């Protein structure tokens, strides 16, 4: 029963991993740019949630929306101010730009919020629920379910709507898309906004259920890489499956070997995957 509880907890955490990783995979698949600061976006989403709760006394809906909007704006700003200028430049500039941004955001957060762990004050989601013998914090359950819902929503947005087709058109052939009257620049800005939005919502959800410090961004960033590498690049459903699997593996290995080893095991899997199947479990060669 305890193991079952660990498994469910891992899957719920994995759902949040899936949500923020789908943002990373969207940008990667669309413009072949890696956002090394993606984990920091999630971390900022968590602090936005904290500030909204502490200063404005907002509930989950309010801080979730606030985090989504704030990170959408950040995503667009980062694209317009930085990525647009470096994405066709040398590899060094591409990688350094978001890597430097990650350091800047992470350590500015350290400076402002200090390195201490914080968690949200009591919200309407506090408490525990008993699901047929499995004890789960309500916040974790809600966060996991909402994360899955948003990941699926993002997938539907990309595959079933006009906006999604435009995004896909730009990612497949930039000049052909331009000839069809699509502005690649706007679409790419939108993609960065959506990616930021996914990270922001994931951060807000994460904040309801888990304590955090500014350093979580680094871990989340690496986890997002691992998830995307597992799920294949540009694939939101791939990110969903892979996110759930990684969450599960982490929870079970923390349960069996002790919490220190959960990251070691995930990173080792990543290295093994690079060796054995670099295109991802579900990706094509």
């Amino acid at each position: 029963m305890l193991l079952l509880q660990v498994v469910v907890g891992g899957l719920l955490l994995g759902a949040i991993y899936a949500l923020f990783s789908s943002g990373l995979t969207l940008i990667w698949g669309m413009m072949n740019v890696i956002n090394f600061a993606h984990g920091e976006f999630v971390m900022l989403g968590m602090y936005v949630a904290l500030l909204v709760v502490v200063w404005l006394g907002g509930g989950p809906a309010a801080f979730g929306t606030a985090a989504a909007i704030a990170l959408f704006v950040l995503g667009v700003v980062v694209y317009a101010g930085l990525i647009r200028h470096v994405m066709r430049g040398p590899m060094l500039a591409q990688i350094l730009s978001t890597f430097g941004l990650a350091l800047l955001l992470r350590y500015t957060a350290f400076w402002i919020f200090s390195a201490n762990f914080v968690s949200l004050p009591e919200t309407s989601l506090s408490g525990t629920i008993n699901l047929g013998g499995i004890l789960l914090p309500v916040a974790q359950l809600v966060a996991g379910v909402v994360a899955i819902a948003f990941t699926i929503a993002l997938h539907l947005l990309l595959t079933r709507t006009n906006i999604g087709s435009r995004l896909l058109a730009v990612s497949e052939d930039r000049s052909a898309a331009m000839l069809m009257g699509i502005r690649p620049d706007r679409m790419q800005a939108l993609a960065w906004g959506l990616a930021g939005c996914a990270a922001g919502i994931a951060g807000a959800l994460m904040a309801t259920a888990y304590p955090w410090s500014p350093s979580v961004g680094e871990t989340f960033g690496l986890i997002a890489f691992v998830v995307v590498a597992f799920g294949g690049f540009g694939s939101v459903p791939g990110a969903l499956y892979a996110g759930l699997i990684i969450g599960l593996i982490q929870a079970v290995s923390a349960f069996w070997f002790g919490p220190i080893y959960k990251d070691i095991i995930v990173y080792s899997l990543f290295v093994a995957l690079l060796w054995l199947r670099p295109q991802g479990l579900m990706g094509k060669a």
Partner: protein
Amino acid sequence: MKNVPTNWGVVVLGACLLVYPMIFSGAFYLDIGVTFLLAAISASAWNIVGGYAGQVSVGHSIFYGFGAYCPLLFYQLFGWPPMAGIPIGIALSIAVAILIGLPTFRLSGHYFSMATIAVAELIRIFTGTWDLVGAAIGLQGPAVARGWWDLTFRGELPYYYIFLVVLALLLFITWLMEQRRFGYYLRAIKTNERAARSLGVPVLQTKIKALALSAVFTSIAGSLYSIKTGFIDPESGFGILVSVQMVIIAALGGAGTLFGPVVGALILIPLQTATNTWFGGGGSGLTFILYGGIIVLIARFEPGGLFDLWDRIAPKRWRRGHAA
């Protein structure tokens, strides 16, 4: 002539570095000098794969850490002189370089960057939990030298000249590399990998050789650091700051240029010392913010670094000749 990069600049730089400890003999200035040399060595080592080959490693602390741990580890385990650990660190670094390079160099450049950062983090966390290598506390070297071969000196002056010799050797090897076919291969790969391959450049092999060469000198830099300091822990060996510093110094001066990392270190190390002095204990966090800001600005405005900027704005006769 382009073959001898700015003759007079090199002579003046070399002379300045040779006499620096005689002019600034205080412990504070000597320490800055030693830190500068070490930073220049590791950034120049990174430059071989990150600059010349254009394969951006953001986890070079892997090799630095191996180099830093081996001398002190074998001293603690068997009482070997720390120097004896240097070749073991080098061997380990080459092995790991090949292990990382073989799968990732076949793929696009992002994979290599990601793999380096993941492996570095993996090793850092692992080292922090493994008691044999001192876990989170770290390892210590000999407190008092048993002989000259322990390379444990009271003052920093001997280290200064040892580091200077290593830096000169590394720059000489890099310069040789620039002139040889290997250097041309690297530039071809960096400019257009597909075109290079179609012209018969052995791409994978060349990249791995560059990474291995870079790893060797990064490992030596790590060994020099730990032997000089007599102490190493996971953060100062495998920490992210170690990797970041190499990248930022090389990129600031000019990645893929012979003296770019030296110029970068000349600027960054005094700047870092100044921020640490001004902001006191809280300085380290601000150092990271500053680093992040500098990296973003370089990437956005001057991806070629200061050398590139110089070539655009300096009077014509002062510019560098363009390497092929």
